[in-house]
């Protein structure tokens, strides 16, 4: 490596600094939301190459430039890399403030083989946001539906809590909020302050009260919709130690996920049922 003089360094640094200043002031705005809301997207920070976070954030911001119906979100999980630490479960529960019994992405732990040829495999199971969902036709009040960008969403205000969708899901991805709190009811504990923090699912603030949504509703993974529409990747993805997860827009041929899902080592859960799940597993 050549030696640079202090003058050279200052010159290069100021040019780079000016470039960054101009670039960020131009600022990419996310595309108009349903209500014409304009958001400012976060700045992309360079990180280690293996995690692909930079690339996925760029993919995400590029996708947000398009109107909602032109995006198609998919999730990819590299099963070989998952060590079964369950940090993603904790992250999801923290992000979405889910109550006891509501866990959007449990991780299935398998032990395979017979000694001495044994191995372990860990498979997280999210809501697959199926392209042909078995859960949406059965809702008697049309409280759950597939959005144009592929996410199957819940209308918390309309759901009557009949749990027909929960029985119809072949993956048991849908959870019911029974109205329980972690500390309450076990001895003399009141509801703890951390349980009163509202959750921002579907970009609306929800605080859990007895009898009011989301208590008494069916809840499920929504790919952290409130985060991705602000240019942030899903919480489970950014938390994962092993960079197991990938997320992006499969309509975008240049995105990372489009490359990954076109490989031959790709598997989806219960494909034979015809649900067309959009969570892909790399074996």
């Amino acid at each position, binding site marked *: 490596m050549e030696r640079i003089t202090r003058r050279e360094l200052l010159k290069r640094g100021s040019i780079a600094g000016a470039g960054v200043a101009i670039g960020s002031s131009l600022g990419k705005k996310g595309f108009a939301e349903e209500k014409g809301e304009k958001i400012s997207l976060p700045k992309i920070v360079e990180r280690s190459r293996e995690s692909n976070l930079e690339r996925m954030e760029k993919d995400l911001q590029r996708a947000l430039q398009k109107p909602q119906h032109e995006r198609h979100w998919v999730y990819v999980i590299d099963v070989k890399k998952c060590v079964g630490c369950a940090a993603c479960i904790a992250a999801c529960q923290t992000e979405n403030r889910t109550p006891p019994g509501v866990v959007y992405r449990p991780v299935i732990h398998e032990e395979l083989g017979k000694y001495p040829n044994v191995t372990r495999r860990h498979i997280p199971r999210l809501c697959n946001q199926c392209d042909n969902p078995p859960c949406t036709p059965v*809702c*008697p009040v049309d409280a759950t539906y597939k959005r144009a960008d592929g996410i199957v969403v819940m209308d918390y205000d309309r759901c009557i809590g009949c749990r027909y969708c929960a029985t119809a899901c*072949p993956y048991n991805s849908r959870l019911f909020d029974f109205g329980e709190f972690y500390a309450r009811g076990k001895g003399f504990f009141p509801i703890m302050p951390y349980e009163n923090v509202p959750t921002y699912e579907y970009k609306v603030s929800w605080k859990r009260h007895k009898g009011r949504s989301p208590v008494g509703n069916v809840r499920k993974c929504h790919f952290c919709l409130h985060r991705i529409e602000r240019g942030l990747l899903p919480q489970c993805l950014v938390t994962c130690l092993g960079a197991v997860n990938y997320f992006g827009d499969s309509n975008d041929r240049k995105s990372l996920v489009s490359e990954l899902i076109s490989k031959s080592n790709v598997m989806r859960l219960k494909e034979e049922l015809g649900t067309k799940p959009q969570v892909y597993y790399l074996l």
Partner: protein
Amino acid sequence: MKNRAINWFLLLTGISGIIGVGAIVYRLVEGMKVTSLTSNFPWGMWISYYIYFIGLSAGSFLFSTLIYVFGRRELEKAGRLALFSAFFALVAGLLFIWMDLGHPWRFLYVFAHWNYSSVLAWEILFYLGYIVVVLAELWYLMRADLGLMRDESSAGKRAFYGALALGWKTPGTKEERESARQGSMRAAAVLGAIGIPLAIGVHGGTGAVFAVVKARPHWYSAIFPIIFLTSALVSGAGLMTFLYAFLGDKGESDYPRIVRSLADWLILFLAIDIILIIAEFLVTVYGNIPEPIAIWKEMIFGPYWFVFWVGQIGLAMLVPILIYLFKRNSSTWLGIGGLSVVMGIVAVRLNLVIPAFATSPVPLLDKAFHDARFVFSYFPSLTEWVTSLGLISVVAFFFLVFYRLLPMVRTSEEYSV
């Protein structure tokens, strides 16, 4: 003697009804956490009772069509009893599913945001149409009696009967009364005929609610809604046999013949039901696909094996068949057989709903996360028991009250339709 027995039942159902209402209020205030359901076990006792009572209702109604549409006049004295049972059973079924909702007070959304692709949404519409038909048919059959009772009653009861009679004026001459009676029977025939596809839609549809769920292999078959219908006919015939044997007028000369006739129909429907269940069982066992086999194993050998063996096989099949073979000349015994069927079919319904959730559809999901509201096992909580028995008591209480007030069993010719 019968009146004394009914008084005791009124007291019993009244007390347990009041306790039950208290439990229901507790459930409405505290929400679904009073149950022991979980996210992976979303449906349990209340849904089982919902399908049970819908089946009882449709079965009783279809039984009444034997009389009013297909002309089996010898059973006519049990006709109104069948329609009253159909009405009260439907109310019970609807109250059970209402109680099971996460947001019970949002039930009106089903009408405001009706989703044409949901079998459950169609069912709610069918239930409404069906209630209208049942009530209309009852009115036509009872209007003359209600008019007479209104005319001959003092002030308080006069208002009650008058309200039910909906302004029916008792005709003066005998010929007019006869032609009004025939008009009633024609109306009952028409309404009964309209009611047949409705009742099949009501209960076959309830079966379809389960049958279209491809996620649960135990339910996902064409025979499932048909089994629902045959079980409904069995439970309806069983209820009719039981109710007529104990509420019918034993003094009437054709009483034993009617009870025997009702029991004959019960055994016929039971035979058809048994054939279908054997078919379902044998075909599944032959295929030996792990998921459906695991559910049958759970049912037959699992921790709740007695629901299958004592309830489904014993009470619903063996007891009525044995009674019919050896004791069919005794109306009391046949009534007991009917009661046994009515209780046994509860076990049939429990086994339709609950074992399907006992195994995980995605392997090892049951060990993936440890939480009381995530487990794949279920036993109804105390609140579920008390609310269920309480709700049944309330409906039974009102059934008995109306039995006292109205001529549900047509006995003498004094009040004649």
